[in-house]
Structures are given as C-alpha cells and as structure tokens.
C-alpha cells in the first residue's frame, strides 16, 4: 500500500483530489467490511458514504499513530454500531425476537446444496450482534479486548457470541454432502 501520509496532509488542507485518491485506494476494503457487517448492500453503501464523510471531517485529528486503513475501518465499525443502536432504540424487544428467529432459522434451515458453500451468505444469516462480533474477530482479526469498547459488550460475551457463530457456521458446513 502506497504511503497515505502526504495524501492525508493534502486532504486536511482541503485538497479534494487527494481525498479522492484516498477514497479510491481504501473504499473497496471498507465496503467489503461493511457489506459483511450489515449483510445489506444498500445499507453498506450508505454506511460507506457516512464513513468517508466522517473521515473527511476528522482528517485534522488523524495523527498517524495507526494506519489509514485501520483508522477508516474503525470509523466504519462505529458507523455500523451506531446504526445498530438506533435499531435497538426503535424496538429492542422486536429486534431481539427477530434475531432469535433468524438464529433458530439458521440452525434449523441448513444450506441448500445447490448454493454450495457460501461463507459470506452464512455469515449474513447470523443475527446482527453475533455477526458483528464474528466479523470483527475472525475476519478483521481484532481481539475481544479491542472489540469490547467499540460495541459496549463484555469480552466474555463477545467470546460466547463468536463461539456460537462458529457453531452455526460449522453446522452449515457440516450439512454439505
């Protein structure tokens, strides 16, 4: 990955072309992460937009102690979690029931053999909180201690969520002929 520092500095001074290069360089990875977290193409695109708008506004606060990619991923995760919290506020109980229905359906439903192994599809079928914990830990490689302050969930709870997610995915893989 080319050095982002000069682009960050130029963009912080208001250079739109510099920020456009940063977008072209990092948006594909951020979008892949958001698609996996949200399991929704349109919502992921909205979150991608919000992520880069927030990043642009926070450029002057970026001190370079983390990679730009890490910084952008962190903003993207926060955008996703803020959206999840809004959903929770809207109707926490209905969401809990919906998550459980999806969870039970995932276990009971198995995989259509015609679809083959589609891990992304299986991840998308996980309940939102479980999916978030799994993607951040297993796909993004973040530790439970790193995820905990982002999600407001205890590391022990995250570990349970990830373990359950693995169980669900293993079952789906095990259903394959």
């Amino acid at each position, binding site marked *: 990955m080319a050095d982002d520092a000069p682009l960050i500095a130029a963009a912080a001074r208001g250079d*739109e072309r510099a920020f*456009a290069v940063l*977008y072209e360089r990092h*948006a*594909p*990875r951020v*979008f*892949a992460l958001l*698609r*996996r977290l949200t399991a929704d*193409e349109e919502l992921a*695109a909205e979150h*991608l*937009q919000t992520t*880069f*708008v927030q990043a*642009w*506004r926070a450029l002057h606060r970026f001190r370079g102690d983390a990679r730009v990619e890490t910084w952008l991923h962190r903003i993207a995760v926060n955008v996703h979690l803020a959206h999840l*919290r809004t959903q*929770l*506020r809207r109707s*926490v*109980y209905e*969401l*809990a029931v919906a*998550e*459980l229905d999806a*969870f039970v359906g995932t276990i009971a439903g198995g995989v259509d053999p015609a679809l083959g*192994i589609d*891990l*992304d599809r299986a991840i998308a079928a996980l*309940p939102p*909180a479980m999916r978030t914990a799994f993607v951040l830990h*297993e*796909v993004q490689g973040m530790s439970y201690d790193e995820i905990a302050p982002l*999600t*407001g*969930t*205890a590391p022990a*709870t995250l*570990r*349970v*969520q990830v*373990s*359950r997610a*693995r*169980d669900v*995915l*293993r079952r789906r*893989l095990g259903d394959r002929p």
Partner: protein
Amino acid sequence: MTMPPDDAPDTRLASLLDALPREATPPAGVWSRVLAAERARRGRRRLGIGAAAAALAVVAAWGAWPARPLTRATSPFSATVSGDMTPGIFSRAVLPEEARDPRLRAAVQEFEAWQVALTDPRRSFGWPNAARRAVVDAVRDTEAELAAVRAALVVHAGDEARRQILLDHLTTLRALQLEQLQRARVLLDQL
C-alpha cells in the same frame, strides 16, 4: 488469557475465512455523495461563522449579553416536569446482572450531575428548554426499553440462548444511555 478448546475456528472454517474476498467494488455514486456532503458542510460552516460573528457584534454593541434574563426558573418545562427530573426516573427494580454493571451507577451519577449543573445559571444559561426535555425523554425511553427487555427475560427464563441475547441488549442499552448523558454534559458546557 486461556482459550477454550473451541475458541479457534477449525481448519476448514479457517481456510474458508482466509479465502473470503477482502475487497468489493462500491456502488457508483457514493463518492459523489461524499463530495457533495463535504461541500455542503463547508458552505454551512462559512455561513455559520459569519452569522455567529454578526450576532456577537450585535451583542457587544448593545451590551445585552450580561443582561439577558434567565428563563429557566419560570419556563413551562421546569414547572411541569421538574418532578420527573430526579434519579427516580431510573428503575429501582434492576436485575443482578445490571446491578453489577458499573455503567448503571455511572449513568445515575451523570444524570445527577446534569441536574446539579442545570441549577447553576452560569452553566445552564444557553440551554434551550427543548434540549433539557430531550435529555429527560432519552433517559425515560431507555428505561422503558430496559423494562421491556427485563419482562422478556422473565418470560423466557428457561431459554438460555434467548436470555443471552436479551442480556446483551440490556448492556447495550445501558451503554447507550450513559453515552447520551455524557454527551449531554459535554454539550451543556459547550453552549
């Protein structure tokens, strides 16, 4: 940290995880919306700075700022909802899991500190009544949602998977409540 035996994905799952695509092409149009949002913000900012400067100039010229009357004490808001603005707005019937969460105590303390700040005219001077009402409403709404989750926990006492998800929601809601109150305190001092 000691990991349970199943804490690492098995080989098959791990190899599939490794093979997941790390990039996806964003839909066309996202970049142009990012650009438009940023340009609009810059425009608003320029306008806002100009308007604030003009307002300050007017205040300075008239010497009106120190003489601005405090409306809080006689506002309809303080007359009608002051009874609700006590820590009694928090439910006292919490679950043991909630009682162990330090964020519960922190949220109550934040709310109490916010109430104390409101009695200090130097701090609460610029706060519109709608903002005060919004803070109380936010706490009340979160408490109502917490109560709904507690009720669901009682109904599904025998279902461990469901209980765990509901307990996660309790934690998330409390964290949200604390975050809102902390933000309210920061805003109080910024205005």
